């Protein structure tokens, strides 16, 4: 083979491999949407799930999924941001930081079922939070922290050292340089990290089965008092999410339309993740533009 032929061959192989990835992903996505979308209806989105009869919806599961995602992000983002700032800006290169880094790597590959059982023992049993949104959100924080931290750390490290020097040369303290220059400059990467981990949280089932529980209790969407047991904002009530719902109707569900319900729930899950993705990017870009005047 000549150099030219080798080049064409290699290019061909690369295109072929990319083709496989695209076909696989498009196939999965298409399959979920084609099977699920016909069963999606306004009624499905706005009615309660049913335990015995056909025709139930996923109103509570949809809300619970979004609520858990928001709570988990609120809890884990500040912690991850702080840890990432420490690791990228302050940490010296010694055995303690090596230990922290390897711990984060190990934790990020921890099976979610293990996180779920750990969360069950610690939050549900030990702290007595019971099967609740709070237990679920805390367990998901454990699940989420390692990846979010290393994503944010990477984006902070991507900000060039000359920016930090320029900040110091203007008389900024270390902290002001980080807050005023490094974090705003790293914002797009930080947003990507939040979006990626958001998708993971949204689709997570195993962690929640043991922490947020399954039983859909009575939820009143007009009750805005978060301390009332029936309020939709109450964090101490058990809450089934979309992903847990799919698992449940397919394992212990006895409804006759289980296939249709899980197909529709699956499609809804994918759609919500896409919407979350796009809107997080949109608002993230708006914030970035506002901070940096990037047009």
């Amino acid at each position, binding site marked *: 083979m000549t150099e030219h032929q080798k080049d064409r061959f290699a290019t061909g192989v690369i295109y072929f491999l990319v083709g496989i990835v695209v076909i696989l992903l498009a196939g999965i996505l298409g399959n979920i949407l084609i099977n699920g979308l016909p069963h999606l209806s306004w009624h499905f989105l706005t009615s309660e799930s049913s335990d015995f009869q056909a025709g139930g919806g996923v109103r509570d599961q949809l809300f619970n999924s979004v609520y858990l995602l928001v709570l988990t992000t609120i809890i884990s983002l500040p912690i991850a941001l702080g840890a990432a700032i420490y690791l990228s800006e302050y940490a010296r290169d010694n055995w303690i930081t090596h230990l922290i880094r390897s711990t984060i790597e190990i934790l990020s590959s921890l099976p979610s079922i293990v996180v779920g059982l750990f969360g069950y023992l610690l939050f549900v049993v030990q702290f007595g939070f019971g099967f609740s949104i709070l237990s679920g959100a805390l367990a998901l924080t454990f699940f989420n922290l390692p990846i979010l931290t290393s994503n944010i750390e990477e984006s902070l490290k991507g900000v060039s050292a000359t920016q930090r*020097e320029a900040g*110091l040369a*203007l*008389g900024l303290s270390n902290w002001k340089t980080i807050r005023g220059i490094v974090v705003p*400059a790293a914002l797009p990467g930080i947003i990507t990290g939040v979006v990626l981990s958001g998708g993971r949280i949204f689709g997570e089932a195993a962690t929640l089965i043991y922490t947020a529980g399954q039983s859909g209790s009575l939820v009143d969407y007009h009750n805005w008092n978060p301390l009332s047991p029936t309020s939709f904002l109450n964090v101490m009530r058990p809450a089934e999410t979309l992903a847990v719902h799919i698992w449940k109707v397919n394992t212990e569900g006895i409804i006759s339309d289980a296939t249709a319900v899980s197909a529709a729930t699956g499609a809804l899950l994918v759609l919500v993740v896409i919407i979350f993705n796009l809107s997080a990017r949109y608002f993230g870009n708006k914030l970035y533009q506002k901070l940096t*005047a*990037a047009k």
Partner: protein
Amino acid sequence: MTKIITTKAVRLKYGNSEALHGIDLDFEAKQLTTLIGPSGCGKSTFLRCLNRMNDDIPNVHISGDIKFEGHDIYTNKTDLVALRKEVGMVFQQPTPFPFSVFDNVAFGLRLARIKDKALIEERVIESLKQAAIWNETKDVLNRNAQRFSGGQQQRICIARALAVRPKVVLLDEPTSALDPISSAEVEQTLIQLKRQYTFIMVTHNLQQASRISDQTAFFMNGDLIESGATEKMFIKPKRQMTNDYLNGRFG
């Protein structure tokens, strides 16, 4: 003429290796002084001592005497914010922050807790004019400063350094990352400003040093070999080593 910065027996060690072997060099106010010498001779290291930019490098030990307007700048009580407000710095790579042109130039002012918006705006405009970048930015002050060309970015950085009205501006090879046209623009800016500010500039470009500087100091292997008026040094250097370097026989 008044001496604005004086240094005596400045030594700097990275761990066990000494990079500066005792430098005595004084800088005249409102003059442009260039520091020249082959790579690794210590001129940038010395420049960075003058506003304590070497402080954050691990294992650095600095001894000797560096005074700004007669005050030792290496005491425990030295206010680094105040010092760097008086002794600004511009780097080799243009370093605009990822904000608008206006916010970049106003950064130091806001840091100095100037709240008066009219004053900030006046200073920003004046500084952009001084740095000869006003005509190119006046209609796009809200544009991200990183979206300008390298030469424009460097002049925005000069404007940012000038905005806090420093007495001295340190320039670490400010044109070496720029193309010839941009670098000529920056040179022009410095020539126009050198009666108002004290500039201390490191450069590898000997023509540039001879074109724009009043004083020149020649460094070699961590020692100051010779310093004096640029014209004299370039025409008739006192030392053979300086003569060899200026004629391109090493370096």
